[in-house]
Each structure stands twice: as C-alpha cells, then as structure tokens.
C-alpha cells in the first residue's frame, strides 16, 4: 500500500510518500496511524495530535475509522489551508 504525506507532516517525517507492507491486523486508517507512530520517534512526534490529521483513501476524503481493504493509496495530511 502506498502512503502520501503533505505539508508539515511530510516535513516532520522527511518523506512525501512510501510503500508499506501492512500486518494483517491493520484494518482501518486509525490502525495504520498507530502502526506508523510506533515505528520511530519522528513518527511518534508527527502523529502526536492524531485527531488533527486528515485522511484520504484513493483520493476521497474519509474518516479515521474507514477500513483500508481494497484501497491502493492512503493520504495523511494536516488541516487544509487553501483558498
């Protein structure tokens, strides 16, 4: 599965995207964020206030409890500031 990061989340993790092989028990986006946060200190810090993190599956905005099954691209990013 491909993960995209944007804005200060991308900067704090020092990467814009990565490919990951997920363990079988990672079922939702919330599970994925917890799993990412457990990998290293930078990630733990980046995902500290995880309620702030917005999420999309295959370029559709979704909530943290959305199942990952079947999705190819997950995007994680801070609140949007366009316009």
């Amino acid at each position, binding site marked *: 599965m491909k993960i*995209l990061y*944007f*804005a*200060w989340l*991308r900067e704090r993790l020092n990467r814009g995207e990565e490919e990951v092989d997920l363990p079988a028990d990672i079922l939702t986006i919330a599970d994925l964020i917890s799993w990412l946060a457990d990998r290293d200190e930078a990630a733990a810090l980046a995902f500290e206030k995880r309620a702030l993190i*917005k999420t*999309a599956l295959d*370029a*559709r*905005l979704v909530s943290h409890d959305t199942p990952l099954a079947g999705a190819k691209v997950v*995007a994680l*990013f*801070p*609140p*949007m*500031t*366009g*316009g």
Partner: protein
Amino acid sequence: MDIRVTQAPLDPGAEANAFIARAAHAGAVATFTGLVRSMPNDSILSLTLECYPELAINQLTAIAAAAQSRFALADVTIIHRYGRMLPGEPIVQVMASAPHRQAAFDAAQLLMDHLKTDAPFWKQETTPAGTHWVEAKSADDDARARWQ
C-alpha cells in the same frame, strides 16, 4: 462547470470574460479572486501552496456540484493554483452565474467558504522572519458551518 487545479499563472480578467461569454444570458455573475496578500504591517515575500491534485479535483468538483444544484446556477468555475507565488499574484478564482444576483453571490461565498477548509492545499508563507506553514483558522470552520 470548469474545475482547474494548476501550477500555471492565472489571468483573472481573461477567465472572467471567458466565463461571462458562456454564461451571459443568465444575467448575474459573481466572482471572487484571492491574491497573495502583503500589507505594510504584515509583509509577505512569497507564498508557496502545496497540493494533492487528485483529491483537490475531486473535492472542488463536489463543492461546485453542491453549489450548482443548491443555487440553480447557470454555470460555475473554480480555478486554484499551487506552487510558489509573489504578492499580488492571484491564487484562486471562483465564478458563479445565475438568473438573480443573490444566488450568484451566495454561491461564490459558499464555494470560497468550503474550499478554505475542504480542498487539499497547504500554504507556506515566507516573511522577513522566515518560512512557516499557515495555520488553519477556526474562523474558516465557522464560515463553512453557516451553510449546513
């Protein structure tokens, strides 16, 4: 409907004339143009917008479709740039046409209120003091909430 997410420069007047030519017989056209601001007491050297283009197109299309059906618009256009811009350059332009002016005004405002909070762009300002990410404003959430 015309939805564009682009790194190319934006010519507000040329876009307005093209929109008006298509929507002319509806009678009322409301336009909003957002520019890189730089005030004497809040100096900005440049603004860089990061974007997730696939999601931006999906979100802006959904916002435009909602405005079109809610306000019975004749036509609607959203153009949003990303990349690096200097003070005075246009960032975004929305245009709505309708038979009556209130519908056109309301639609342009709804489009702006929604895209501030729902479209995947992130602003990074460079000021004399350095470069920082612009924080999301609760005022923008409030502006969006009034349409629900």
